[in-house]
């Protein structure tokens, strides 16, 4: 009897220590990144965040182009992906014949299973040439002519660049946002939905006036989750962004992101300050994604707890 109780205590302690291990892991990641980036922040100060320099020969480094690239590609990707993902979620919950719901939902989710590197190779060899010969010249000839606004679409159609990276990112985060939205749409009580239909509302009115207001927090959570994914996405972006450390107004110009810079340059960085600057970039990326993902999970968690109420 006493032996059994000892077994219980031991088992509980072991599982508890592994649970604590997960917490420690996050702490250790942050600590190691902070330690690794100290030389860079020591050399450049907080100016590191706002400098556009990137010159490994002269040991001058600044994070701004990579931060800008990371944010602009992710934001553009969200602008493209969110409407599409809502469309898919609406289709799956409201329109699709029940027999096809599962297969179509599974196929969309398989988009999320395809590894980043596959999107990269596909983006480089298939999508970029297509964009270069169709979409990009069309954008330059139409929107590029508009005064002021046109600078966004100036320059030659290179195929590779910010816009191409954003389109690939949009495809990659699409399944995450779509499946979270579908799940929160399904939490709307059937009673509400049916009452609205009984009053003569059309499907689009039910979506606008019942489903979206009811699942607002969950939708925002899903979008933030997608944003968190997009910010840290590495390989696909590395293939198609062009890897240029500058900030250009044009979306067709090549740029870089934090993750692409790390993937391209980390193994080539030999001196300490170069390596440390790259680790500092990694720290910045981690902090940004942590904040976004924490907000996302908080919102989804609130959504989940309301569902139980």
């Amino acid at each position, binding site marked *: 009897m006493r032996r059994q109780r000892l077994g219980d205590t031991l088992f509980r302690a072991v599982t508890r220590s592994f649970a604590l291990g*997960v*917490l420690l892991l996050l702490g250790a990641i942050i600590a190691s990144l902070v*330690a690794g980036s100290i030389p860079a922040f020591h050399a450049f100060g907080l100016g590191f965040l706002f400098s556009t320099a990137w010159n490994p020969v002269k040991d001058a480094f600044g994070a701004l182009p990579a931060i800008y690239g990371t944010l602009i590609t992710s934001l553009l990707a969200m602008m493209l992906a969110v409407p599409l993902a809502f469309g*898919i979620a609406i289709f799956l919950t409201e*329109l*699709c014949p029940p027999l096809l719901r599962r297969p179509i939902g599974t196929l969309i989710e398989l988009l999320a299973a*395809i590894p980043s590197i596959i999107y990269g190779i596909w983006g480089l060899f298939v999508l970029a040439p297509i964009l270069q010969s169709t979409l990009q010249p069309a954008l330059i000839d139409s929107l590029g002519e508009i005064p002021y606004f046109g600078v966004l679409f100036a320059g030659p159609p290179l195929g590779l660049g910010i816009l191409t990276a954003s389109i690939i990112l949009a495809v990659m985060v699409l399944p995450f946002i779509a499946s979270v939205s579908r799940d929160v749409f399904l939490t709307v009580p059937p009673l509400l939905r049916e009452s609205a239909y009984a009053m003569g509302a059309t499907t689009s009115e039910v979506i606008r006036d019942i489903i979206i207001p009811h699942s607002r927090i969950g939708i925002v959570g899903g979008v933030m989750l997608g944003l968190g994914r997009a910010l840290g996405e590495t390989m696909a972006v590395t293939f198609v962004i062009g890897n240029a450390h500058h900030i250009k107004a044009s979306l067709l110009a090549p740029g870089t992101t934090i993750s692409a810079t790390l993937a391209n340059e*980390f193994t080539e960085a030999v001196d300490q300050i170069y390596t440390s600057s790259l680790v500092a970039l990694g720290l910045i990326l981690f902090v940004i994604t942590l904040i976004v993902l924490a907000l996302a999970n908080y919102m989804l968690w609130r959504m989940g707890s309301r569902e139980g109420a």
Partner: protein
Amino acid sequence: MDAMLYRRRAATNYLILSLSFAATGAGLLVLFLIMWSLLRNGIPALGFDFFTQNTPPPDRSGGLLNAIYGSLVMTAVATAVGTPVGILCGTFLAEFSRSSKLAMTVRFINDILLSAPSIVIGLFVYEVMVVPMGHFSGWAGSMALAILVVPVVVRTSENMLSLVPASLREAAFALGAPQWKVVVLVVYRAAMQGMLTGVLLAVARIAGETAPLLFTALNNQFWSSNMNGPMGNLPVVIFQFALSPYADWQRLAWGGALLITLAILSLNIIARFLANWSSFEK
């Protein structure tokens, strides 16, 4: 007047529904396009040499044997390390401490780690393993992948353990079994299929991961079964070969891409079938 309002509402409805139909079509089209280019470019590369030769120098023919081997070994080690850690942590969350403060925090952090950028995990392992050891290694690559396995397994095993009916536990307790025996002999067994699903999904997740291997396992052009040195692996080889100017390398990259994608998609589909069988809601 009413007729016009009605027509406008019907038109809006029609428009919204067509757009959502088109969005779904677009998503499926992209999946189809990716698969089609993988098959078209990848199948010609898959021959006898592909599976029996090592990665060649530029402009020579060869295969991906060393990379396939390295990927298999590192994925296996990562799964073997990450799975028990994940299951034990999931057990704590589901069996011992469902709503304590610690459990809530662990759950929250775990959900964040689930989507944390994998390249940062690579940086972390570089700092704590590669730098102290002084060289890149297969072990470091495996550890980076293991860190990615843990949150996936924690999430699924917690969910699957929570699905086990309480009556099963109560029956075992009534027979006088201590809690650890109830968990190990009854609850684990009942949730086995579901937890296996989680492990398969975790394997599928890490099999194609490139970013965490770039500066941990690095790559190795030659055959190497030495886990203590740089090790060849499929994702990094695909990365290097695809961006090279050599036609032979690019062909091999497409072959590797097809191989990885087929493996991952089959793992996902198998995992889904397992999950459907094991659900208690039948």
